[in-house]
């Protein structure tokens, strides 16, 4: 499958603290180019906080204290004071769907427009391309100018995915993207993700263990801010675990 493993992101000794308790403690993790890394683990284990570190959304949280380093393509993401450029390289899909209060089309073109793209043809292309990838195009192609906030929850979730793809990110982070989406559509998006990983790297936090199993190349099991286990799926889901709790979690006994 993946012949050469290039490190896309290296997380080194990452510790995140929101005041009293370490949410992530001393975490080391490499994410390879063109893989899908699934992150599983019970609630409160630091999965979402980890994603928020990757695109430096923690900058906006005044109580967050971060130590350690994250390298992307070998360069520290904390090097620049301004994090907007970093965020353009990373697509982030948050668990709760947020349609920005503008039209569907404006939602998808928001990121490119903010990055300075004014070419109407290119923007139209991005709209169609991204909405198709997010399995939303057929439902909304006739009403691209209607308000995004009037869409249903599941549609808004897919709109969020389309928006995250609109700026051609190198890394796509998905935090529980399928909570509001029906299984058929979820499958459509999953197949798009498998297609996408040929060109980009995907980090996916999920509570659906089968999804991690189906979609991931590797899966990381997190608990209390630490990675208990990380391995290729064919190993991890066939009993080769370091920690018994991973096996129990996968089998549904724990967590």
């Amino acid at each position, binding site marked *: 499958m993946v012949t050469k493993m290039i490190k896309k992101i290296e997380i080194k000794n990452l510790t995140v603290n929101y005041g009293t308790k370490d949410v992530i403690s001393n975490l080391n993790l490499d994410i390879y180019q063109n893989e899908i890394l699934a992150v599983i683990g019970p609630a409160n284990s630091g999965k979402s906080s980890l994603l928020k570190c990757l695109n430096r959304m923690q900058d906006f949280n005044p109580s967050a204290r971060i130590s350690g380093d994250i390298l992307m393509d070998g360069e520290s993401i904390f090097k620049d004071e*301004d994090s*907007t450029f970093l965020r353009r390289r990373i697509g982030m899909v948050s668990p709760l769907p947020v349609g920005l*209060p503008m039209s569907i089309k404006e939602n998808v073109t*928001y*990121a490119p427009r903010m990055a300075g793209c004014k070419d109407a043809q290119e923007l139209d292309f991005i709209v169609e391309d991204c909405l198709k990838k997010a399995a939303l195009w057929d439902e909304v192609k006739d009403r691209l100018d209607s308000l995004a906030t009037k869409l249903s929850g599941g549609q808004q979730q897919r709109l969020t995915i389309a928006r995250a793809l609109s700026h051609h990110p190198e890394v796509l982070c998905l935090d529980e993207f399928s909570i509001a989406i029906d299984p058929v559509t979820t499958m459509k998006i999953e197949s798009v993700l498998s297609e996408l990983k040929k060109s980009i790297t995907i980090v996916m936090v999920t509570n659906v263990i089968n999804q991690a199993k189906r979609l991931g190349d590797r899966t990381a099991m997190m608990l209390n801010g630490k990675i208990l286990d990380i391995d290729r799926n064919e190993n991890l889901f066939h009993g080769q675990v370091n920690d018994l709790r991973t096996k129990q979690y996968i089998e549904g006994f724990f967590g």
Partner: protein
Amino acid sequence: MFRPSNHLILKEIKEKKLKNLLSTVTFFLFLPALIIMLWLFVKGSSALSLDFLFMDPIEGMTAGGIFPTIVGTFWLVIISVLVACPLGVIAAIYLSEYAKDNTLTRIIRLAILNLAGVPSIVHALFGLGAFVLFLKMGTSILAASLTLSVMNLPVIITSTLESLKAVPQSYREASWNVGASRLQTIRHIVLPNSIPGILTGVVFSVGRSAGETAAILFTGVAFYLPFLPQSVFDQCMSLSMHLFTISTQVVGVPDAYPYATALVLILLILSMNSLAVALRSYFRTRRKW
């Protein structure tokens, strides 16, 4: 068959009683406003005419009209809003979108709240000291307008802060997530969705300025002027001050004159407030979430 028990029937009666009580109280709140308007209209309408609106006061203010006072009020309101509005909105944006929550910003917020509670006569003394004397503007439209803007700043800041806070945080995060900067997020996401609230605050503060008397008393408003102001460094007359003058200081003013002046003032403020309400409902129908 299911029959309502006594308890349920009692509950229903109670419910009705409470509803009647609430509607009665609400009606009595509305009553004073209605009575004031009616009373002013009954007493003042005989003096109301186009001449009254567009003539200078003559014969020691016992005849003629109130034109210069309307012009003066207009000047004061426009300039004070032009100064207070950008300052207030910018300060509110800083406090809401940029400032960290620390001791300094908490003191600033507290100061703004306190400023809102300062009596207008104290603002007048401040204006006299700061603008008229220290900055050597003299008693002028400019000094009076600036005093009014200081008085209106907390109102505008507070209402702007409220409407900025009403924009869901998730919108900001979604915008940051795709690589928009803070400024772009404010420009494209936050401001478009808080404009109605901001405008409402501004227009209400306009209404407040128009009716204000004390704050402009020492800073730029004259008892009587035989000419219209030519620049912002001239003094002017104002509706509210004129009302005070002709009702207490001048002998021989026709009975209807003060009432008519008050009516004009109130109609002016009411029309500004209705503009605020209309703007708000217009933007609400266009609200996008």
